[in-house]
């Protein structure tokens, strides 16, 4: 294999690509023609005769997922609104006392607890929302408050899903990603939404939106308002603000975690995992942090294509690499400390960590795993791309109200 032959081969390839005939290009190199001919025939055999087509639908879907995920990560970077650090302990105690009085007026803590599962339109729904506002007001730590806001946001979506499932006719408000658009019928965070003329103008697939409207008996939400929710997390209300009316809950941001492999999955040497990303966005609710299990690393990846290009990847020889050399292995950086705070709901109330196993019965902003509802946040880590019907192991926080926030869901 001489340099001249290699150069001639490349030149001939270019000429063939430009439309020249095989004989014509070989005529350029009569001394090398016998060697070049079978090579060029082989090259023609494995080269597509026309540019490979890229389906627009695939590109659009990827783009929607990509940008929706970016919004989640952007939200995770944005510091949570800090409304209360300037408040003195005395003032916070005063706020807490006000909340106690409010709760007492309504019948005490028992009533608050009883209101937890209530849905829009229920008698106790006001109590539930008031308790949420008080809880937010009393949480000083920004990260904890953001996590709490996300939890409440997840509830709004869960409530909307519940009332739709029950066929209730009641006002709902939630935030979610636009997953489908077919005329005036959209799917937002998995919920069918009827969009009246004039609403949602300029909102495209993958866009996160606030939706307020009325759930109909046929399971479709008739939207009254659809507004882009690109401004990040909705700040928790100040302690002086009245709670939102129960029938028009204030929307808080909904976002979407990666529907794809956790990078850690490919870090494991055996067995390696094909990412098998799904084509269906998995709506979620928490913009607090990436769903990736990987932590920041100071080791930049090489910029070129060889196996080390993806720092998260553990390469191995291809399955049928008989004629070739082994593919070197890129060792990923070890996971390090995460960049953002754990989703503790407050400074004083540390959630209990729980683990359980079960079958995934529903996915979305809230997963149902063997009958247990678990809120998915941007912090939730997925391993092996669990989905409907999969047996999974769940690590979660149990918040003071008994609800679960998933930390990790591993396919078993």
């Amino acid at each position, binding site marked *: *294999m001489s340099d001249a032959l290699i150069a001639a081969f490349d030149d001939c*390839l270019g000429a063939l690509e430009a439309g020249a005939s095989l004989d014509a290009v070989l005529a350029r190199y009569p001394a090398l023609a016998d060697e070049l001919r079978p090579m060029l025939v082989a090259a023609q055999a494995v080269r597509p005769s026309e540019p490979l087509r890229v389906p627009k639908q695939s590109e659009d879907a990827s783009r929607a997922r990509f940008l929706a995920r970016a919004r989640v990560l952007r939200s995770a970077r944005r510091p949570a609104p800090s409304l209360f650090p300037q408040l003195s302990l005395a003032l916070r105690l005063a706020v807490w006392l006000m909340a106690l009085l409010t709760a007492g007026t309504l019948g005490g803590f028992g009533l608050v607890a009883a209101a937890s599962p209530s849905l829009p339109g229920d008698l106790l729904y006001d109590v539930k929302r008031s308790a949420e506002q008080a809880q937010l007001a009393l949480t000083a730590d920004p990260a904890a408050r953001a996590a709490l806001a996300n939890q409440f946001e997840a509830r709004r979506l869960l409530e909307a899903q519940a009332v739709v499932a029950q066929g209730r006719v009641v006002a709902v408000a939630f935030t979610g990603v636009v997953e489908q658009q077919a005329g005036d019928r959209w799917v937002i965070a998995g919920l069918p939404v009827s969009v009246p003329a004039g609403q949602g103008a300029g909102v495209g697939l993958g866009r996160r939106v606030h939706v307020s409207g009325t759930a109909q008996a046929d399971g479709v939400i008739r939207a009254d308002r659809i507004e882009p929710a690109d401004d990040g997390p909705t700040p928790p209300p100040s302690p002086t603000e009245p709670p939102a009316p129960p029938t028009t809950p204030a929307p808080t941001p909904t976002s979407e975690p990666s529907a794809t492999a956790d990078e850690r999955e490919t870090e494991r040497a055996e067995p390696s995992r094909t990412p098998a990303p799904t084509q269906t966005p998995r709506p979620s609710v928490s913009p607090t942090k990436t769903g990736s299990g990987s932590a920041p690393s100071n080791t930049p990846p090489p910029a070129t294509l060889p196996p080390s290009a993806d720092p*998260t990847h553990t390469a191995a020889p291809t399955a049928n690499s008989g004629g070739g050399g082994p593919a070197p292995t890129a060792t990923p950086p070890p996971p390090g400390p995460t960049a953002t705070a754990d989703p503790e709901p407050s400074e004083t109330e540390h959630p209990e960590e729980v683990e359980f196993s079960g079958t995934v019965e529903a996915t979305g902003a809230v997963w149902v795993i063997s009958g247990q509802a678990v809120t998915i946040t941007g912090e939730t880590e997925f391993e092996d791309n669990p989905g409907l019907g999969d047996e999974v192991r769940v690590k979660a926080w149990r918040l003071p109200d008994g609800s679960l926030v998933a930390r990790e869901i591993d396919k078993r």
Partner: protein
Amino acid sequence: MSAAELSEKALLEQARRLDERALSQIHDRYYPEIYRYALYRTGRTEVADDIASEVFLRLLDALHNGRAPQTTLRGWLFGVASNLVVDHYRKAPRESQGLDETVAAPGSLPAAAEQNWQRREVRAALRQLTREQQEVLGLRFGDGISVEETAAVMGKSVNAVKALQFRAVEALRRVLGVSEVSHE
């Protein structure tokens, strides 16, 4: 430093801040070639869909975690795509050897000989190449990018890419037994 490089660096800088406009540009600019690359390497549109989409999600996570490419975004994206192709074959080694009837554009089905790259035996032969050989053919033939661009993506010299390309085709020629065909 070329204008294109400057532009990519500027894009990267904005992308590190997860700027939506920059991210959109990155996706629009690179998705088609990442998709074509994955399609050529795997021969299956649905796998190419998944891999191309995953590449960009990996980019986001890398940007978010401070592990973003420092200079050559394009090379980084192709590198991740290549890793995902390897993962795909490792998970399903018998997949992606079959014909994918959906690859050719509807209404423009080329002659059978022109679809050779999709043939089962050709796909099997491609997979017998070294990883680098498969990568160079993916870039050169699947994406149709120049030797110079391929060299930049792979971090190799132009001459090294030409030699790698030659060896890849030579290996294919041996596996496919093209010599007899050449004299017909």
